[in-house]
């Protein structure tokens, strides 16, 4: 299959490009002119890749149209995972890149006469709610409350994608959970999300009172709160499988999360154990006292959402369409993640 990957140089993108390329697919990569050299270097071992010069922030996407004209007819599948991903991104940045960028991509799809599949990478956080069972087909309203601009921008862009669901090509929305490092090597690109918890535990360890005296740690964690953690290599495997084995449907949405996500309490306890601070967490209601405490321990406010949210994510679509997908046990790869974390921090 001839696949155009948009956002192929990012954290997931790089790995997905490799995964698809290893399976013999013919790949086109949309790369901004300023990143072209770097991209060519990254993928120098993959000779089947064709680089197209373009920018999703342009209304015409392809900056150098003349050379790409013929190529456009060949593309059968587009994978769009270009997005700015930082929990503290400004609304303007998130909007320009994630929302308008997606709008530009959608417009561009109209020019691909042989397009059969469009894969859009959203996030489980596109439904950023605290309670309830969230189905894969659910998408909360655009004007709902969001805890961060990233989630809001992904919600807006998923709405755009859904509004444009076409009869001429199939739309597949991938909604990854919380992405962590490689389950085999622990390798990662940034310290977002759960890695903040590792920082938090490390900071706690520095307090002699906590380290030496405490057995229990009261935290404002909801008992029902879960961490839908998925290692990047697992995610890439799953997405590759979905891209290569699409189901015949106008729109498919998948929560790419573990079958039974670990609870936030368990996640914290297991992480503390690995980081040699074996405390038991006591779930307490959120009170004002935690705000200054968290500031003191430099916990970013985005983490509070992880502790508070008690919604469950359904993955019936994924189970039904792809029962063959496998995943490693959280307990088996957590030590690897933490080991790599400690190594890089050191």
């Amino acid at each position, binding site marked *: 299959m001839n696949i155009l990957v948009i956002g192929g140089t990012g954290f997931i993108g790089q790995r997905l490009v490799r995964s698809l390329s290893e399976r013999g697919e013919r790949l086109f990569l949309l790369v901004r002119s300023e990143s072209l050299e770097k991209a060519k270097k990254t993928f120098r071992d993959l000779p089947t890749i064709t680089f197209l010069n373009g920018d999703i922030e342009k*209304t*015409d996407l392809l900056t150098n149209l003349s050379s790409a004209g013929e190529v456009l007819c060949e593309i059968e599948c587009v994978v769009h995972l270009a997005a700015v991903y930082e929990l503290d991104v400004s*609304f*303007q940045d998130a*909007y320009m890149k994630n929302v*308008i960028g997606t709008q530009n991509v959608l*417009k561009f799809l109209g020019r691909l006469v042989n397009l059969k599949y469009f894969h859009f990478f959203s996030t489980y956080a596109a439904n950023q709610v605290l309670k309830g069972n969230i189905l894969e087909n659910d998408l909360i309203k*655009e*004007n709902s409350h969001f805890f961060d601009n990233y989630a809001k921008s992904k919600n807006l862009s998923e709405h755009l994608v859904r*509004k444009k669901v076409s009869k001429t090509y199939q739309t597949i929305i991938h909604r990854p959970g919380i992405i962590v490092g490689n389950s085999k090597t622990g390798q990662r690109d940034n310290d977002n999300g759960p890695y903040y918890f590792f920082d938090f535990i490390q900071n706690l360890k520095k307090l002699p009172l906590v380290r030496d005296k405490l057995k229990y740690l009261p935290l404002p964690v909801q008992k029902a709160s879960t961490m839908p953690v998925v290692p990047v290599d697992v995610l890439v495997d799953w997405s590759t499988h979905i891209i290569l084995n699409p189901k015949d449907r106008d729109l498919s949405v998948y929560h790419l999360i573990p079958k039974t996500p670990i609870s936030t309490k368990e996640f914290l306890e297991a992480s503390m154990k690995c980081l040699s601070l074996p405390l038991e967490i006591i779930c307490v209601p959120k009170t004002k006292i935690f705000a200054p405490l968290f500031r003191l321990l430099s916990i970013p406010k985005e983490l509070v959402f992880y502790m508070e949210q008690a919604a469950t994510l359904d993955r019936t679509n994924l189970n039904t369409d792809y029962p063959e997908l496998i995943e490693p046990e959280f307990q088996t790869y957590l030590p690897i993640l933490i080991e790599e974390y400690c190594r890089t921090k050191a």
Partner: protein
Amino acid sequence: MKEIIKLSFGSSSDNFDDEIEMNGHKIHIRGIGVDYDFDLALSIVKKYAKECDAFALSGFILDIKQQNKTHVHRMVKAIREAAGDTPVLDGNMLRKAAFPWALKKFIDQEKHFLSNKTIAFYTGLVQWNILPFFQDYDCKLVFGDLFFSMGVPVSINGLKALDTFLRINAPVLSRLRLKKKIKRDFGALESKSITMKSFFDADIFFMTESQLKFTELNDLTGKTVIIDRLSEEHEKKLINAKALRILTLFPSYANLPQLSTSVIEAILHITHPRGILTEEDVLDYLQTFEIQPRIQTNSFAESNIDHFAFIIHPLSKNQIAQIPGLSFLSKSPLLDLAENLAAKVPGHHYCTITGIKSEFDGKEVEGHLYMIPATPKMLLTTPVEKVYDSLSQICTLAHKRGAKLIGLGAYTKIVGDAGVTVNQRSPIPVTTGNTLSAAATLWAASFGIEKMGMVHKKDGRFDGTCMIIGATGSIGKICAKVLANQWKKIVVVAPRPYKVLELVALLKAFAPEAEIIGTTNPNKYSGESDLIVTSTSAQGEKVIDIDLIKPGCVVCDVSRPFDISLEDAAKRRDILIIASGEVELPGNVKIDKTIGLEGETVYACLAETALLTMEGLLESFSMSRELSYEKIIQIDRLSRKHGIRLSSIMGHTGEIKEAEIDLCRKYALENLKKMAK
């Protein structure tokens, strides 16, 4: 492909992107809502100014015009500057032509739409393109600008006051920073603020869809909303506020809901051969794509019953003494004074008629009777303007109570120009009820003929003579037309011979099977007539010699005052003199106070008002002193359809009972026998 970016200052939930083909051009239109983030709007314009052909703005404060000055809002100014050579369209040129045009089209269908109404604008600030339109109509304007823009809960009454407000505040307003959080809650204010009473009391609320986004609505129960365009989401918002009617001036294209005025203007602009859009082009567009305003009436459980109103008044000063608590006046010399004083009391709600239900479709209507406590004498002697005023006031009261149509009873439809002025000043259509009155009189005549049994039908026609006195007048002519199809011989009488000749010619053509005779002297044919209808303006002067009338004749005296005097009527007990026919309404009708008729019988003119409401024919059906034949036929058909029937026939002194008819017939037969001898 051309590219248009529609930049909405409001919620990003309206984002879209679509391709359309117009005027042979392929156009990509994308909607970007910036969630009230002006910096984001500006960065989008800067980034895409060179990549798109035009920007269409929505939800920004557009130009504020005040006398000869135009204040451009600083945000719009900044956007225009950032866009450089790329045109920024705001839809104003299109709205300026399209909105008044659409509104005018609607008013052509519903003439009372603006009459005597108060129209409230949540903000009049940017409505300069439609405000002058309202000056041509008899309506008041009130503005919520002080609250909408500045949070000060005081309404601005009238255009002049708005202009003063703008003169002082336009420079500030054009710098106002809009934020989502300044959503104005008119709903919370409604019960608290007396300084905005005139605003909340308005009949019609004017708003644009973008303003609606910034507004929490007040209770719109029974109110009408005029809005530029309407998305599903906002329609729900209006329905939740209980808006009874919504008039959308610029309905969305079903398949292209995103085509707002600014986007259409942008399309016209970029596809324009010369590249500059003028007002002429906008006119061309409006003429090519016939844009129709759309009205929708929302039904709420409690308002399934439609309401009408009717105005009555005491027919004599003695009726004033019947008002509870005033009975002591009945024989008092104070009665004349009371008559004078009562006439100065404003009209008020008198009673309610419930349970009227159509036999055709079960449609239920309810009537509110308003009393103007003036006797015929007072009505005819009070300066006509004052009577008009008090009648118009009642129309306004009735409108507030939810009445959709109002009827004029007894002398209220005789005063002045017979309803024309009242109709012009009323917020709801007015009818005199004369058409059904005339029809009911004809029903009564035919009922009388049947009961008397002196003349019989042959080949579908009464085998006898029918005379119409005053046949060239409005009612007379219609009666002649109706009766010419029912009688073998018709005699038409009028004082002017040329008019008689003209009418005879008309009737001959209209009913070729009838024998038509014209005369100026009724006495010539009164001896052979079986039915005499007299409708003249003789003002009580004798028009016919009562002694010459054939025994057993039915005389229908439609004139007021009567053509047949009480003395004359008393002389001839062998002829049946009918003054009118009164009717009964369908359903289980209940009237909670007496209206001077027995049981549930109502005046035919009241029944017309109820009937028109049942039929949904909310118009000034009968107006002035003119009647039309077509309307008589129509009202006759509608009466049968919904189940309005003749319930009693009225003589000069009240209802004529069957026993009286029997007696009359007995005398007639005796006299005929005598004459034969």
